[in-house]
């Protein structure tokens, strides 16, 4: 903090506002935007990965893989997000600590589940109670990212499954007639063509993912919505910068942020859709071919 901000109650006007907006808590608030962007950057590819594996499994000729893929899609899609977020994070956390419990706790320790409590020996805590606050934050964030990836992966799996089914059968048959193996058909024909069918569904998911990031707060990660609510709430003289209820302004700021995010995404996705349609046997691809000719 700057030296001129040492006594915020003595200053007024613009310099007060400047000091207010550069307080430690506001700096945390600005970093939390990065947290959200980081979550998107990690979750989107991870969810796509989950989705791809899920979709491939769901249309596999091998029955157990097919059942596994379909169960994953049906289960995650069928449970409300909030319930899933609340349940899964706790379950994942306990599962990790249970595995560590088996590995490091002295033999004969009682099982961690005791009535309402979940208790492992101190050595098995993840992260350890002695770890710095940064590790606790990182661990919480990672749990959240994995949960997001699994939930959105299930939706992505269904979209990709549909897209794979939408690739015209004739295309695959032609490839087979050329003597390509199943794997080659999958890699060279099916996957490159399915993206243009998958993109509208995937872009919907991406938009929903952007708008779902405030769920981070449910998972104990302090995101921008948490800070907006916390900073905007009215502050008495107990605080260094007392003020009234300013939540409206903070939320207006968030509104602008989210609108910018979705607008930029729309533009980029539009460009991507154009790229993917090029040379495809779809209406969009045909229109492009005609325009070029």
């Amino acid at each position, binding site marked *: *903090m700057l030296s001129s901000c040492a006594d*915020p109650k003595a200053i007024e006007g613009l310099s007060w506002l400047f000091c207010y907006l550069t*307080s*430690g*808590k506001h*700096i*945390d608030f600005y970093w939390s935007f990065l947290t959200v962007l980081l979550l998107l950057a990690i979750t989107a590819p991870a969810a796509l990965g989950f989705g791809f594996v899920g979709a491939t499994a769901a249309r596999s000729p091998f029955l157990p893989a097919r059942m596994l893929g379909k169960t994953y899609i049906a289960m995650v899609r069928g449970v409300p997000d909030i319930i899933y977020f609340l349940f899964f994070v*706790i379950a994942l*956390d*306990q599962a990790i*600590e249970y595995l560590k419990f088996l590995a490091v706790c002295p033999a004969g320790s009682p099982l961690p589940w*005791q*009535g*309402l*409590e*979940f*208790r*492992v020996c*101190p*050595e098995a*805590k993840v992260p*350890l*109670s*002695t770890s710095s*606050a940064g590790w*606790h934050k990182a661990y919480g964030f990672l749990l959240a990212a994995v949960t997001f990836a699994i939930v959105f992966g299930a939706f992505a799996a269904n979209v990709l499954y549909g897209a794979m089914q939408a690739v015209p059968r004739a295309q695959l048959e032609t490839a087979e007639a050329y003597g390509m193996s199943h794997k080659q058909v999958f890699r060279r024909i099916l996957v490159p063509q399915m993206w243009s069918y998958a993109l509208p569904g995937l872009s919907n998911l991406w938009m929903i993912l952007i708008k779902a990031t405030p769920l981070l707060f449910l998972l*104990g990660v302090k995101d921008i919505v948490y800070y907006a*609510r*916390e900073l905007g*709430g*009215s502050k*008495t*003289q*107990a*605080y*260094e*910068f*007392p003020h009234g*209820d300013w939540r409206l302004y903070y939320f207006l700021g968030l509104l602008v942020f989210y609108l910018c995010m979705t607008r930029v995404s729309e533009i980029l996705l539009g460009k991507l859709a154009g790229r993917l349609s090029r040379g495809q046997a779809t209406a969009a691809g045909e229109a492009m071919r005609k325009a070029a000719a």
Partner: protein
Amino acid sequence: MKKLLLATALVALGAGMAAAQTVRLGTEGAYPPYNFVNDKGEVAGFERELGDELCKRAGLTCTWVTNEWDSIIPNLQSGNYDVIIAGMSITPERGEVVDFSQPYIPPASSAYLALSKDADLKSGPVAAQTSTIQAAFVAENGMTVVEYATPEETVAAVKNGEAVAVLADKDYLKPIADESGGALVLLDREEVIGGGVGMAFRKSDTELRGKFDAAIKSMKCDGTLDAMIVKPEYFGPETKVWGEEGKQGC
């Protein structure tokens, strides 16, 4: 030689484990002057100072964690932190799921904050924070309760007319009434609910609870607890303190 090595290893391990005990203190961080997150982004308030002092007296290393009020007890039980120190009143219902230390603040008054002195508490809903003793009190005493997740929202509900009044700890509401410029007033009627404010522990953590109990008692005995309570930035000189009652059995 082997035995010596083994013994050394065991001693080193034991020492490492003893030093590894960091106690995580969980608080809400939204209830000044009890606890709040200050403009530097750190936990502050009465309970911050108290908690740090208690840890010093008990010889423990402590760190602070904030958690939503709603899930503060479940997260204690699942081991996210070891102690709740969040202005939590001792009640028999909570006593069934957690164990309390002895109280560090005597049973305090709860007050009603309303738009005018003559507000009729039966004419509309009374706001209170979810899972507080005040919310239970309102519901049990023939008034309609409307619950909010944070203390901030309960006050906002009174301001915009969703609720006739808000029932909360007087120490929380008084600065809000004082600084509202007359827009919000405290009613003359007050309630004394709960068995004082204490720290909450997992039922299985009797050893840790014993350490904090002893530390609280020692602060009551030498009067430092009372001196801390009446500090102007916390509860002020008019607040009820422990006095002679706290010194019994020293």
